[in-house]
């Protein structure tokens, strides 16, 4: 579910009302529906052009909302409801946090933390954001932001974040480095150690694309920061922010990037969402040994959707303005239809059809055009579902995370497209239909 779309009620109630109005119009009309349909078919060029304008507007809206939907899904899928993210007090993001290493054990012994086989389900991590220069497919140099997560114990970290490896890979070794005779430090050509890395599926594909591969594979090496890295495993992380992360041993990441004697974050597993909330509150307000800021992972990741919300606001602004253009377009079409069929209207009135029946007929026509165009827009828009895109997600307080995600066209997106098109059709058709209704029968026959 796309949780930053207007709330379900705000979306489905207007859609339901319009659908109900449509059904009522259809049921109570006296003028045959075929009359309207035939008129649309006879004036097929005009119908088509108006519908295409609607198609374009709804298609663009669908694509833009699908993009935001993909961002939101990444954020939503990254959080485990039972996890608590512990940062140092005042840190607005993982990258700004400095937790003393010595405090970790005591924090893990707090009531509420789940233990398994004598070990706390707690992932001790150093999180770093890297600016990686690279070369685009056009040969132009560009930059990419990469997230590196140094984990103390990869097995525990995988368990806490509920991630698993694709077949053929393995988690990081105890040392986290391997000797390589072929891969030295970038540029020096000497034999040196390479850092073991486990890559998220999405970032493996992104880095693979740099060298014309579908994805980096286990055994491939790549340069990142001042060192060379060796892929030892690829994480299955469908649609989560972890799919865009590179994992390595905490000690190696800390040493390489100057964060040796600290953790940026501890991720603790509590029994369930309620226990996680209680644990987070306790650590934030009652833990006295050091000042901590603990939040549930769900809360932390929901904050990251701030950027998506900002984009969504811009999407609605642009789409609404374009929709106004569409409304004027359909008004033109309907006014022309009424002008052409003034004598028809006169005849219909003289043989006894009420004014509101005329209004209903023309309103139905404009709604049918809108439905054809908008429906086509939704169908075409559906083809972007699953297409890969990348952008940054984040809150206004932290460093945004670069994420690769799939665009999402879900039922809400389609409902939004349909609501938009019906509103455009209804608004655009109402004034002309009103004008048609007010035509005097004798005058229109002259």
């Amino acid at each position, binding site marked *: 579910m796309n949780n930053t779309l207007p709330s379900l009620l705000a979306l489905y109630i207007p859609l339901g009302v319009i659908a109900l109005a449509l059904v009522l119009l259809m049921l109570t009309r006296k003028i045959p529906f075929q009359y309207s349909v035939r008129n649309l078919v006879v004036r097929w060029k005009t119908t088509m052009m108006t519908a*295409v304008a609607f198609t374009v*507007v709804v298609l663009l809206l669908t694509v833009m909302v699908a993009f935001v939907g993909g961002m939101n899904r990444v954020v939503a899928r990254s959080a485990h409801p039972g996890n608590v993210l512990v940062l140092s007090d*005042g840190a607005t993001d993982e990258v700004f946090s400095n937790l003393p290493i010595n405090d970790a054990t005591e924090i893990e012994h707090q009531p509420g933390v789940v233990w398994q086989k004598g070990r706390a389900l707690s992932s001790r991590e150093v999180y770093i954001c890297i600016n990686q220069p690279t070369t685009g497919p056009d040969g132009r140099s560009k930059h*990419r932001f990469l997230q590196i997560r140094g984990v103390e114990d990869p097995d525990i970290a995988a368990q806490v974040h509920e991630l698993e490896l694709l077949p053929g890979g393995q988690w990081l070794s105890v040392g986290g480095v391997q000797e390589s005779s072929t891969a030295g430090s970038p540029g020096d050509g000497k034999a040196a150690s390479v850092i073991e890395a486990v890559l998220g599926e999405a970032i493996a594909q992104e880095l693979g694309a740099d060298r014309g591969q579908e994805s980096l594979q286990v055994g491939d090496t790549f340069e990142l920061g001042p060192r060379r890295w060796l892929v030892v495993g690829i994480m299955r992380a469908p649609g989560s922010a972890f799919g865009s992360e590179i994992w390595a041993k905490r000690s190696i990441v800390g040493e390489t*990037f100057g964060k040796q004697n600290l953790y940026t974050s501890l991720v603790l597993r509590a029994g369930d969402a309620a226990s996680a909330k209680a644990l987070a509150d306790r650590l934030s307000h009652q833990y006295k040994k050091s000042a901590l800021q603990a939040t549930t992972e769900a809360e932390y990741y929901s904050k990251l959707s701030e950027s998506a919300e900002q984009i969504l606001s811009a999407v609605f602004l642009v789409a609404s303005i374009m929709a106004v253009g569409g409304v004027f*377009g359909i008004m033109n079409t309907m006014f*022309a239809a009424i002008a052409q069929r003034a004598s028809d209207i006169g005849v219909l009135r003289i043989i006894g059809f009420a004014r509101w029946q005329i209004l209903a007929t023309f309103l139905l026509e404009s709604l049918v055009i809108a439905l054809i165009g908008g429906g086509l827009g939704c169908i075409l828009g559906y083809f972007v579902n699953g297409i890969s895109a*990348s952008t940054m997600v984040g809150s206004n307080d932290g460093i945004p995370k670069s994420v690769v995600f799939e665009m999402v066209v879900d039922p809400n997106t389609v409902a939004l497209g349909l609501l938009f098109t019906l509103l455009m059709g209804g608004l655009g058709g109402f004034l002309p239909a009103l004008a048609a209704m007010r035509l005097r029968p004798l005058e229109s026959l002259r």
Partner: protein
Amino acid sequence: MKFLLLIFKNLLRNKVRTILTCLATMVLVFVVTMIWTVVYFLNDLTEKKTENLQAIITEKWQLPSQMPMSYAQPLSEGAASHPGDLRPKESMLWLFYGGTIDPENKTRDSLIFFIATDPNKILTMIDDLKKIVDPKVVEKLRQRKDGAVIGPKRLKTINKKVGERIKVTGLDYKGIDLEFEIVGELPSGQYEDLAIMNQDYLNDAIDAYRGPSGSRHPLDQRRLNFVWLRVGNSEDFAKISNQIEASPLFRNPAVKCETFGSMVASFLDAYTGFIWFIKWILVPGSMVSMTMVIANAISLSVRERRKEIAVLKVLGFSPGRIMVLVWGEALLLGLVSGLATSGIAYVVFNVLMGGIRVFPGNPPYPVPLDCLWWGPLVGGGTAILGSLLPAWSARSVKVAEVFAKIA
């Protein structure tokens, strides 16, 4: 002239249709104006200057950039260590200090973010500020180490005025809480939500800090965030940049030296896909939609005037002239609507709102004057495109067929 008059009169015959088509065109030109303003803004940010360049030095790999203070001196000198090495014309350090004035209730409204720097450099190094900041304010900041100059938006948010004192509880610099006297207000715009403080005040506080076991502050060796250098031209920049990046003094962490424009460009690289979508899908999509609306209006108008077109042909109008007549109507409509929209957008956004706020937190960016040509161009261009088929249809009206139907 008569031809123009005819075009004009034709448009006035169905005023409702003309107005609706104009409004549709205006709305869509408005969308294009907004989007292109954003594109201009992004281009402007990444524009490459050639003279009086400002270089910015940051940590090479990590975000946020955090370098040791020991880098300050050699970096300020462009890592010049050999005879013949080039030194920058001027330099400036930036340290960041963020905190809250309400530690019990750390909401976004209680936060305040300071750039700690040398007050002497504010008017000489920051291009945007030297034109708009009152030198007296800078003088006050120079005189008071605990002085702070705060942007009007932040002052309003924290409900403080110049002359009042604030106590800030450090968030990133945990345990370093500072008291300030607000000595002035920054101008509206880019810095309206920020504050500037004296770097000595922050440095002294960090140096004096001792943890529970007498340890120095965790950020002690990572307090320097940016170093700005004023260099001459791009050749000087290249040389100084090379001196810095090749220097053995800056290895852990490594640093990079780039122009401000290229730094912004590297940030924008992360949004390449999104920007591509705006440029190549959203704008053309809007234009297709607009083309359809115009095409529809013009074709309706042509269909209603088949008899009249037949009469014109009988009177001696060539098919080409008829086509130009229809094109002319569309073009006039598109040009006028486009010009009116871009003109209105220019005045409304720039005069009433100060521009379009592209990113939250960023100052509004003015709609460029160029919109006065791109508005009519987009309006006129799409009108021509939209009227291609209707104009061809008008050109192809067969006089005999039309009169046969009437008969």
